């Protein structure tokens, strides 16, 4: 027991103790001499930071669904180059990231609150935050029916001109709310039975993914009212080879990846959406080995280079949302795989920056003690709880060759989405 007790306290202390002793010791040593020669440090006045100016290409918003305390979700902004946290939003119950209108630079957060934390009347808002102060500018009331699920990307979308916001509702009846971001007001809620996730397609059109394997067009007038819904053509087999909902856009096309490793590239240029082409991420031997797209936010596109970055893992079909082990990179035009690289830590979300020297960021899961320790324990049959031994981290890679640049620790309680300013 004495052993256990002391050990625990050591565990509690080790984190910073060693450094601490060292520094203070050296400090005392310098004291006498230093005091004579050096001027004193000037007094300071506390202030509140605002967001630094300059390029934001390598900034990344981490969406934290905090499953152990879903009442307290956050969106947390990091500078991936410096590995530095820049600020955070408290986003209420079960938020899953932010939307980032390029035209204003504002931050749009879909937030849900109850009168008494976990009980009482429910209130949903589209909250608009100032990008410099991170303070709320507008809190736009919405119908309290926003859909909550572990995957939050494509649960809402911005029109191409950032004028309108569309939000998926689920009660479990399905509908979509339209919000005017110039007037900062809710416009209307339209019934979209059988259809949920949202994919922008122009200034006055949203696509919604339907259970019948089509992308339906919701066409709005200039006030944001939906004037018609136009069915698309079936573009995949929802039973034979379902696509995952986190699609990525390139021009007029939306690229959907399927559980069996195909890309269904949808032509969304006209109101009647249709499959442009289906191509494969895998050759037959890879498919036989069980390689497939993995994670919650499994794909990202570097638009200028026309490259598709995909989180990949090996495993049965049902494991398609488990953490990925590798990143496979494709040239979209030629469908050729141009690069693969291992992940420093397994990851559930990926993003790639759009600048000339792009970086890849991943929402990763890192073990709290070295991997080999857990290997050792598992070999001798010691059990530990999965959610006790991993912590979310942000990994940063060079997009050109996959070189691991840095790992940022403790970025969230549980990160499932990444969004770029």
């Amino acid at each position, binding site marked *: 027991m004495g052993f256990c007790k002391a050990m625990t306290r050591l565990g509690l202390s080790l984190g910073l103790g060693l450094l601490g002793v060292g520094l203070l010791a050296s400090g005392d040593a310098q004291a006498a001499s230093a005091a004579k020669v050096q001027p004193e440090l000037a007094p300071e006045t506390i202030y509140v930071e605002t967001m630094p100016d300059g390029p934001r290409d390598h900034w990344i918003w981490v969406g934290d669904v905090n499953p152990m305390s879903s009442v307290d979700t956050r969106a947390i902004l990091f500078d991936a180059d410096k590995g530095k946290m820049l600020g955070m939003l408290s986003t209420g119950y079960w938020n899953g990231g932010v939307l980032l209108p390029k035209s204003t630079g504002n931050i749009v957060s879909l937030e849900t609150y109850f009168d008494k934390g976990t009980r009482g009347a*429910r209130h949903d808002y589209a909250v608009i935050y100032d990008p410099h102060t991170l303070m709320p500018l507008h809190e736009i009331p919405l119908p309290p029916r926003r859909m909550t699920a572990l995957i939050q990307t494509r649960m809402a979308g911005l029109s191409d001109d950032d004028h309108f916001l569309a939000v998926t509702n689920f009660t479990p009846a399905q509908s979509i709310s339209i919000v005017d971001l110039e007037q900062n007001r809710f416009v209307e809620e339209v019934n979209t039975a059988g259809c949920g996730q949202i994919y922008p397609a122009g200034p006055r059109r949203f696509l919604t993914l339907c259970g019948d394997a089509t992308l339906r067009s919701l066409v709005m007038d200039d006030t944001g009212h939906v004037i018609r819904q136009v069915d698309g053509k079936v573009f995949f087999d929802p039973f034979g080879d379902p696509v995952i909902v986190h699609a990525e856009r390139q021009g007029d096309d939306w690229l959907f990846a399927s559980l069996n490793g195909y890309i269904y590239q949808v032509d969304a240029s006209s109101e009647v959406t249709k499959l442009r082409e289906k191509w494969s991420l895998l050759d037959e031997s890879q498919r036989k080995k069980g390689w497939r797209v993995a994670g919650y936010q499994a794909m990202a596109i570097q638009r200028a280079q026309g490259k598709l970055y995909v989180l990949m893992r090996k495993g049965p079909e049902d494991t398609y949302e488990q953490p990925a082990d590798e990143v496979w990179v494709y040239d979209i035009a030629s469908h050729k795989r141009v690069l693969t690289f291992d992940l420093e830590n397994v990851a559930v979300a990926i993003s790639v920056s759009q600048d000339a020297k792009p970086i890849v960021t991943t929402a990763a899961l890192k073990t709290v003690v070295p991997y080999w320790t857990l290997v050792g324990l598992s070999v001798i049959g010691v059990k530990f709880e999965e959610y006790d031994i991993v912590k979310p981290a942000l990994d940063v890679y060079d997009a050109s060759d996959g070189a691991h640049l840095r790992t940022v620790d403790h970025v969230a309680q549980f990160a499932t989405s990444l969004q770029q300013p």
Partner: protein
Amino acid sequence: MGRMDKWIEERSRGLARQTSRRGFLATASTILLGAAAVPLLPVARLQADTKDDGDPTKCDYWRYCAIDGFLCSCCGGSPSSCPPGTVASAVTWVGTCRNPNDGRDYIISYNDCCGRSSCARCACQRDEGDRPLYRTDAANDINWCAGSTADIMYNCSTAVIVGVSTGE
């Protein structure tokens, strides 16, 4: 990869169906029911009581084959009851799990319990036939407290026996 590596690879592959870090919500083929209503499913005539061995506080309990959430059995409830102070979800989804005690396939209804913050104990994810969100009949990751009288405040998940599957 080195040998150790391969060993681990195989091991974890084999375990993949049992567990996943992935979700905190319930899984498996979905149907809509009133909380008290009778499921619209093929159900064989049933008799009372039989073997139901296994530890309902462990993720490997047979009824949890398609569950994805915190086990109510660790939160003040049981496989067929919600913890005090919560309400059962009005919507439920079902899976088909084999009872190792009698070798039969049972239809299991995974009602969420709602109205308190996350129980945060016994997180359990087992993925059989999980499908993306638009397949609401089989969609994982959806918070099914939606539509409950406590709205979307998710606390934990149950695994209620609906009946024996007459199989398709």
